[in-house]
């Protein structure tokens, strides 16, 4: 079996905690597209740079708080990113977050770009692709509510009002979507060391 010689995200995060700027740059290369894509769609291109920069400065500042015993770096960093991006988005009002999250849902409903950039291709691991496929395979109504909750930071009541569905239905769809994604994450194991 081929073995990667690149360090894992968790090992890099530990080095970032010790002030290793090269490790920090590597984590940026691996994760910047995700953060930037989210920030662009929720906050707009004009503020995406600033938000992305702030997310990574948080990583630089707080990497020592990451504890691999409590979970994978990807999940921890997703939480860091969400805190910053949704925090900014909430200052802009619900309507903008609603529209942006609907656009993200439409995007995720489409087939992925058949010709991603070399950068995108190189940093996307097989596990990433499997997790993305798990999102794509969610029933449309479940994907919609989880996207609105996660990317748009909308409450279940806000989602229920937006899609004109009973709150109980939104809760059930969210719960089902979360369970399926959790299963996918568990099924595909921990993040492997990435190839260069």
């Amino acid at each position, binding site marked *: 079996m081929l073995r*990667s*010689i*690149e360090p894992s995200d968790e090992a890099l995060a530990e080095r970032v905690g010790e*002030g290793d*700027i090269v490790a*920090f*740059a590597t984590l940026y290369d691996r994760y*910047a*597209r995700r*953060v*930037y*894509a*989210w920030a*662009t*769609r929720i906050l707009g*291109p004009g503020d*995406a*740079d600033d938000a992305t*920069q702030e997310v*990574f*400065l948080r990583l*630089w*500042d707080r990497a020592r708080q990451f504890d691999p015993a409590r*979970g*994978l770096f*990807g*999940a921890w960093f*997703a*939480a860091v*990113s*969400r805190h910053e991006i949704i925090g900014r988005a909430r200052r802009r009002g619900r309507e903008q977050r609603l529209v942006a999250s609907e656009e*993200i849902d439409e*995007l*995720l409903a489409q087939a*992925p*770009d058949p010709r*991603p950039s*070399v*950068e995108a*291709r*190189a*940093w996307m691991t097989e596990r*990433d*692709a499997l*997790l*993305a496929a*798990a*999102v794509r395979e969610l029933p449309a109504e479940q994907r919609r509510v*989880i996207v609105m909750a*996660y*990317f748009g930071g909308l409450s*279940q009541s806000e989602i229920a009002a937006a899609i004109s569905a009973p709150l109980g239905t939104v809760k059930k769809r969210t*719960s089902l*979507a*979360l369970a399926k*994604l*959790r299963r996918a*994450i568990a099924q595909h194991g921990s993040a492997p060391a990435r*190839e*260069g």
Partner: protein
Amino acid sequence: MVKDRDLDETGEALLAALAEHSPETPTPALRERLLRKAMRHERSQPISWRRSALIAGTLAMTLLLAASLAWGLSANRTLAQERTLLTQLQDAAAKDEIVFEIVDARNVIKATLRSPTDDSPTAPYGKVFTRPDMPYVVAMAGRLSPAPSGQEYHLYLDDRRIGTITPNESGFGYFVYRADAVGIAYQQARVVLEPPQTMGASGRVVLTWTGR
């Protein structure tokens, strides 16, 4: 009420999906700006450290600042030297469309070559990309040391030497090879350091991969 923790647990999958579907890419300028800022950025420290730092006094702080500046300069140099294989590939690939045709293909077959002697994160490594429906082979290697005088890095697929990898100043090199036929399934790839005229892979094996 859905908890933030529940959402964060699945955020990894959602972000991977968004990245897969999104063409947006941050500019290289943002990366440079961020890294510069990070090196200047004061990292938050535990309170006890702050107290100790105050007690240490102005002289210690001055020394620390000087050391930080020196470290920052050193880190900058290291960064410049450690441009990723990816960035270099992009630079090089801009000149050669066929690289994209192979590397970006959904049916690409990729072999990762590694050093038989060095398992460290800074060890040299290589990749060989092929497509079952095209005759081209894209080969690349990174972190190679400059070849000693009178020697070259030769790439062998199975027992056939198919090309020479000439690393640039940061140790990256690549080339595109057109095979005799489409759909050749290679079982072995090696990068061998040897004199230019050698054809039999008799030199030192720097990188290797063997198919199962």
